[in-house]
């Protein structure tokens, strides 16, 4: 009796989905999953433009909680459910989804000629060298500074490290916290390294790192860490207990003059305090005339899932997402820095970020060492937190990180 009931229920369910499937054949609806709930309005506008150009295809937007998104998406895909098009992250997090075969390789199916090598490599699976997502935005780590507080303390935006330290001292003397950041949230420590001191290691070090001829005990990297340690007196009182949101508030409420952070803060700073007058700058140069670096990484991309039964419509959307038109909409509606060639940046600050990106080094751990455990990020964050608390030297940090990565990375094992 019970078996019959279950069978009947299953049959009913199948026939309902079956009907829905037939309904969709004439007017196709693609589902799109993302972790960016706050971008709903913009994406709906973008998808409406897409539907206009591609009659018969509509896109349904569905957003999930950011920190759980990766788990939700992979669980759904593993169970044979999930969206047609998924917003996916980059690097190691992409591999977690593409590696087990939940995404379709896009080589030859989507025109990605408008993207740089670097952008595409963020969405490439290392195992087969194929592209699995259309890159959507890059993020840049910059130093934000409050122009009003700088003027109040009589400080010019510094160019060299020496000027930077002098500026910090002048701000501190004027009773202003020079730098808002604290070390309580582990990930903030890695952000500080990538924001404040990348000019001390730069792209040469990155190239050696990738080639396997340098590790994190390299004098260039250790020097950078030592410079970061020098900034301890210029962080807020009790900075070991200052978390990310407190640091943001210190900068937004104009109690601190500088904030080390990513370009995702721009919109947030503007909306929380419309009167806040701020500018951005790259990491100070080691000496006058030397290059000033920012750190960059790609935030993620758009992918076609292997559970999708609407491959053609899905590819049409992905091809649209690789055009400058789409990029321009991301820029104007969301302030995202689209990596598509030919995109125009009308917002002066976004245009400046794009200019700073010309002298950029990768956000090292995310781009190169977040593929295996223990990840370079976890190791660096804890080691720098320790250093800033006065319990480790820059040399020890470099050694500790190198040894941790060496447990799976052969070039570091000598």
């Amino acid at each position, binding site marked *: 009796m019970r078996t019959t009931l279950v069978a009947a229920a299953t049959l009913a369910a199948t026939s309902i989905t079956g009907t829905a499937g037939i309904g969709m054949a004439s007017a196709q609806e693609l589902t799109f999953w993302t972790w960016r709930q706050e971008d709903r309005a913009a994406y709906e506008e973008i998808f409406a433009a897409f539907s206009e150009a591609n009659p018969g295809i509509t896109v349904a937007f569905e957003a999930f909680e950011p920190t759980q998104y990766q788990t939700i998406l992979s669980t759904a895909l593993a169970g044979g459910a999930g969206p047609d098009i998924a917003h996916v992250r980059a690097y190691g997090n992409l591999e977690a989804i593409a590696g087990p075969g939940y995404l379709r390789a896009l080589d030859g199916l989507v025109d990605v000629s408008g993207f740089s090598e670097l952008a595409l490599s963020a969405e490439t699976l290392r195992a087969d060298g194929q592209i699995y997502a259309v890159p959507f935005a890059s993020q840049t780590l910059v130093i934000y500074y409050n122009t009003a507080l700088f003027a109040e303390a009589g400080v010019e935006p510094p160019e060299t490290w020496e000027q930077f330290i002098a500026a910090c001292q002048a701000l501190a003397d004027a009773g202003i916290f020079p730098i808002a950041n604290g070390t309580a949230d582990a990930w903030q420590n890695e952000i500080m390294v990538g924001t404040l001191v990348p000019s001390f290691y730069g792209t040469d070090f990155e190239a050696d790192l990738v080639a396997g001829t340098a590790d994190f005990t390299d004098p260039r990297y250790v020097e950078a860490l030592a410079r970061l340690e020098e900034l301890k007196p210029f962080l807020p009182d009790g900075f070991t*207990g200052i978390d990310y949101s407190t640091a943001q508030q210190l900068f937004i409420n104009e109690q601190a003059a500088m904030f080390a952070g990513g370009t995702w803060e721009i919109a947030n700073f503007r909306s929380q305090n419309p009167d806040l007058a701020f500018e951005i700058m790259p990491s100070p140069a080691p000496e006058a005339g030397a290059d000033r670096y920012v750190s960059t990484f790609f935030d993620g991309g758009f992918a076609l899932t292997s559970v999708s039964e609407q491959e053609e419509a899905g590819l049409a959307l992905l091809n649209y997402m690789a055009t400058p038109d789409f990029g321009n909409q991301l820029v104007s509606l969301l302030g995202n820095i689209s990596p598509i060639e030919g995109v125009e940046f009308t917002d002066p600050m976004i245009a400046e970020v794009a200019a700073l990106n010309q002298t950029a080094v990768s956000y090292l751990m995310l781009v190169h060492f977040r593929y295996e*455990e223990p990840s370079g990020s976890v190791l660096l964050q804890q080691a720098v937190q320790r250093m800033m608390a006065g319990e480790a030297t820059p040399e020890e940090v470099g050694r500790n990180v190198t040894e941790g990565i060496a447990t799976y990375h052969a070039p570091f094992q000598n």
Partner: protein
Amino acid sequence: MATSSMRRARMMRRLWIAALVAPGLLVMTFFVFVPIASALAYSVFEWEGLQRGAFVGLANFATVLFSEPYGSWTWNAFRHNVIVFVTIMVVQNGTAFLLAYALFCQPWGHRFHQVTVFVPVILSTVIVGFLWKLFYNPFGLVNQLLRAIGLDSLAIPWLGEPTTALGALIFANTWHFIGFPTLIYLAGMQRIPRDLIDAARMDGAGNWSLIRRIIWPLVAPATTVVFVLTFIGSFNWFEMPFIMAGLDGSPFGATDVLGLYFYRTAFGNQSSSLGDFGLGSALAVLIFGFVLVMATAWTLYLRRREIEF
């Protein structure tokens, strides 16, 4: 004839009992036994994301226990759980016992106090965690109070210093939960026959000897319950450190406990690539086994003590 109707009655009774037990058993099976069994099964395989790889036997257990850096992470987290257990047992439950005795003596307004002590227990741990995180902020209430009474040197970043962070978490936890052991002890005390206490008073027993010779031995069943629950709670501690110190057990592992360590190993965190169900399940199985064995041993031991008195 009579036997067959008796047999039928017995049969009905059995069916009836089975029908009563079945729903509970089903819930337990699907939500407790199956997950435990699957964790056990997961722990002996290699995992790539949600995809099961090769059978690796006890390799995951060996990794989390002995291979670096996992070995020292496991040991560090375990050590913190022990500290949490001992501190909560002594400080929280000791204070709870004294509070219970104070309430038991029925001072003026004792009903009001009884409710007040218990109120934080019914608050959500998320709310309590966020509240105390704000209090402990370098510019927060705790430091403002300390500065106001001239103790500037004590106004430190409580959650940022490795020496104070775990203590600060335990204190917040104590504030949150102290009402629970207090209530258990109070109930235990109220069950003590009144004439025993009156007789002791007649014989000239003061508060101290009353507590030591009458109350403490006779609330032994309550102590057993409190002890075992504290033990299980301490080794499964997760919400409070997760909310106040983050998944990494900031600063640099000073507040890391097995619960956090298990979670980020199995499911990954913001700064690591992917979770590893194999290693995570191995940790979960180890934690479960340890808690099961120890809790059983403690219970058996403490029960014996109850009977002796």
